[in-house]
């Protein structure tokens, strides 16, 4: 029975080692295609001029920041219900990438907002929810880093991720309500009346590129977590990576 439990991280280590180069390669190819479509094929927007080209990174970053949080919550749920050892590692491997995308979404949103709204920051429902999502990511990362015992870090982090994922829709709904009550800006980046099909394609391709990058990064990072936690296991000592 013992070996079954211990084989899982070892198997994941090998699997992750095979997946991450493919994912990174895919991300690079898709980025090249996406940028080509976004910068050379797509025409200028007749309302927003060239500035709209920010959406090819802004929208994928926002989407991925949410997708990654949901993915973390799924791993967390798996970890708490089935007590699998790798779930906690995957949750923690995803978090920094999610936080990065969240930050990038806010940054590009601000740079898009300045020429469009005339302000770096408006308390728009989407931007505000994104900011709160960043806080949730930072809270998760800070908590798991503060706990020394990996088992406790995994499980406490899982509770935070699940509580957070229950709260994200509530937060979005409340911020939206708050926003309409105060009649804030409701201009949307993605709702231009004449969104050309090629713009959508560029956005889609860039989203897939970010997706592939996130997968690659999570699998790359999880390998190190596995090595750190399993450093006393026999199979780690036999890896050719650490041969002198």
């Amino acid at each position, binding site marked *: 029975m013992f070996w079954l439990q211990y084989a899982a991280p070892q198997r994941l280590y090998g699997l992750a080692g095979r997946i991450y180069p493919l994912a990174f390669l895919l991300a690079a190819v898709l980025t090249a295609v996406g940028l080509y479509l976004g910068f050379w094929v797509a025409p*200028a927007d007749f309302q927003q001029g060239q*500035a709209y080209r920010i959406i090819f*990174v802004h929208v994928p970053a926002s989407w991925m920041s949410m997708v990654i949080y949901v993915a973390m919550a799924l791993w967390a749920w798996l970890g708490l219900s089935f007590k699998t050892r790798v779930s906690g590692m995957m949750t923690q491997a995803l978090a920094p990438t999610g936080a990065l995308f969240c930050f990038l979404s806010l940054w*590009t949103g601000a*740079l898009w907002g300045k*020429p469009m709204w005339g302000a770096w920051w408006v308390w728009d429902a989407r931007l505000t929810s994104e900011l709160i999502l960043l806080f949730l990511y930072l809270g998760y990362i800070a908590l798991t880093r503060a706990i020394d015992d990996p088992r406790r870090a995994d499980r406490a982090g899982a509770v935070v991720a699940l509580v957070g994922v229950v709260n994200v829709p509530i937060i979005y709904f409340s911020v939206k309500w708050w926003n309409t009550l105060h009649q804030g800006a409701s201009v949307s980046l993605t709702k231009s009346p004449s969104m050309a099909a090629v713009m959508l394609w560029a956005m889609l391709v860039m989203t897939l590129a970010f997706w592939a990058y996130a997968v690659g990064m999570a699998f790359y*990072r999880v390998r190190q977590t596995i090595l750190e936690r399993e450093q006393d296991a026999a199979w780690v000592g036999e890896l050719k990576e650490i041969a002198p």
Partner: protein
Amino acid sequence: MSWNSWEEFWDMGGYAFFVWGSYGVVFAGVALELWLAVRRRSAVLNGLRSQREDAYAGDAS
């Protein structure tokens, strides 16, 4: 093709700062994350290597 010259491309219709500011930070962020991850991998592998050498030294004595 929507650009007549490279100057026009880099100018982005007057929005160069905003567009390139966005893309620059996105690529810088991704590069930073990759660099940190690679550095962590080599740190972990170095730690394991020295641990293994210690173990061999322990066997020999």
